[in-house]
């Protein structure tokens, strides 16, 4: 029992890790294709059929390029920066429930690496740790544009973490648990949290954009003002890690959003499907549904990036502190009042 459980865990970890990396890799391809679609171009189409080998070519280029560490950079921290960025991006997936319990050969396994009872807070902690990769890298580069990018990243993350936390509090008031597994189970069928928390979801979405440094909140790497932002001095795979971390973050935050608000692996009519498909196949269909939601969400991230222009820095701060935080507090009060009245 112990060994099979352990083996299943390890396999699950490896699979999730591989999936995150592959999704991140193909997000770069998807991003270029989506951008091309929005701008009425063709996009990458040389490497392989429809250009699907493009991410491999990009990766090979990143690995083979010359490693440059600037003379005045703080050598060790210069390497720690991107490593930390990719590390924090990868560990977020540990608490996400990828599907309901699956039965294989008479045994039941959870499709979740670990179900800690503070799962939501764990995600939150990992997100808040993510900024260190950017800050350390930006500071260690010893370049004023990098430093400015790093400082922007820090203040942006801290500002939006507050409204993100407040928007989650309203959700937690309804679910009554911090475990992502239980939150996903509560949304059985079509009882998704987004119907009960539309404003909370909207706030969370905006904050997720800001926390992943995606456009229109990509001020830390705003090339019209800061050359390349915090990764100005980076080249080869260290730059690749920063860009990669952004795509993994996008994947993880899409997964968190899908789990918290869009029902996770639940879908309407899942009981009927479960009765038809049996306890081994049905959870896998749930996983496919979850990935469908995640992919749509990633597409949404790209859609916004190629549609909405970047904010100015003061507008960003005003939005965070003067609009999102009051809205989030209003949302908490409204949720409290309504859920007490309906009880």
């Amino acid at each position, binding site marked *: 029992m112990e060994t099979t459980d352990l083996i299943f865990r390890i396999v699950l970890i490896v699979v999730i890790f591989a999936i995150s990396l592959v999704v991140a890799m193909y997000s770069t391809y998807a991003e270029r294709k989506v951008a091309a679609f929005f701008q009425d171009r063709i996009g990458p189409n040389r490497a392989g059929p429809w250009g699907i080998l493009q991410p491999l070519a990009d990766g090979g280029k990143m690995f083979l390029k010359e490693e440059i560490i600037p003379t005045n950079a703080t050598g060790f921290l210069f390497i720690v920066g991107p490593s930390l960025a990719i590390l924090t991006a990868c560990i977020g997936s540990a608490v996400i429930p990828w599907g309901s319990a699956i039965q294989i050969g008479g045994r039941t396994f959870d499709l979740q690496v670990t179900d800690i009872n503070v799962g939501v807070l764990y995600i939150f902690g990992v997100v808040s740790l993510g900024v260190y990769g950017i800050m350390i890298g930006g500071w260690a580069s010893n370049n004023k544009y990098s430093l400015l990018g*790093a400082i922007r990243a*820090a203040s942006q993350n*801290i500002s939006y973490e507050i409204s993100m936390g407040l928007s989650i509090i309203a959700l937690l008031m309804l679910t009554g648990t911090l475990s992502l597994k239980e939150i996903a189970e509560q949304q059985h069928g079509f009882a998704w949290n987004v119907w009960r928390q539309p404003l909370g979801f909207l706030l969370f979405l905006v904050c997720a954009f800001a926390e992943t440094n995606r456009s229109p909140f990509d001020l830390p790497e705003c090339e019209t003002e800061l050359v390349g932002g915090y990764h100005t001095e980076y080249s080869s795979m260290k730059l690749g890690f920063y860009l990669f971390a952004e795509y993994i973050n996008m994947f993880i935050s899409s997964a968190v959003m899908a789990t918290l608000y869009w029902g996770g692996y639940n879908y309407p009519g899942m009981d009927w499907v479960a009765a038809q498909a049996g306890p081994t196949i049905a959870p896998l269909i749930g996983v496919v549904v979850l990935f469908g939601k995640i992919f749509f969400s990633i597409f949404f991230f790209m859609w916004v990036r190629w549609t909405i222009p970047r904010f100015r820095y003061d507008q960003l701060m005003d939005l965070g502190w003067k609009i999102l935080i009051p809205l989030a507090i209003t949302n908490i009060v409204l949720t409290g009042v309504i859920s007490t009245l309906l009880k």
Partner: protein
Amino acid sequence: MSTFYFIAFLSIFFSILVISAKNPVHSILYLILTFFTFTIHYILLNAQFLAIVNFIVYMGAILVLFLYTLMLINLNKESEPVKPFMVKIAGVFGGGILAVAVASSLKLMGASNPVLLQNPDLGLVKNLGKVLFNEFLLPFEISSVLLLSAMVGAVLLATKEKEPKAA
């Protein structure tokens, strides 16, 4: 138990690095590592909520602000203030007293009685929340009001110097 000793060693090791590092930014980075070892201590004590809150609030927010400020100030050897002679004397004196205190406490050291928790699951979110909102509701609410007033006070201090009407 050996995990505890290893983590405790790391805590002390990183705390010493915090005060011995020449570069203030390095010092903050060691402080982050120190707080990370504290988080592990809380997990070993089965206080998961405290662990994760320590992780989010101290490592994720407060130290980011520290780092942010230090990066802007850009302290280095040239701008380091030269300490007056009297301060050095005071430092030596203080250090000597600390050494005496440490030596005497080492001499009196014996195994203290371990505190036995009545409920080892007290640190889990559900139990902690029930205790906070039943037995300790008044102190909890008062401290939250205190924190809020501190925040309002900070905003007031920050905006005082500008135009009289707040923008």
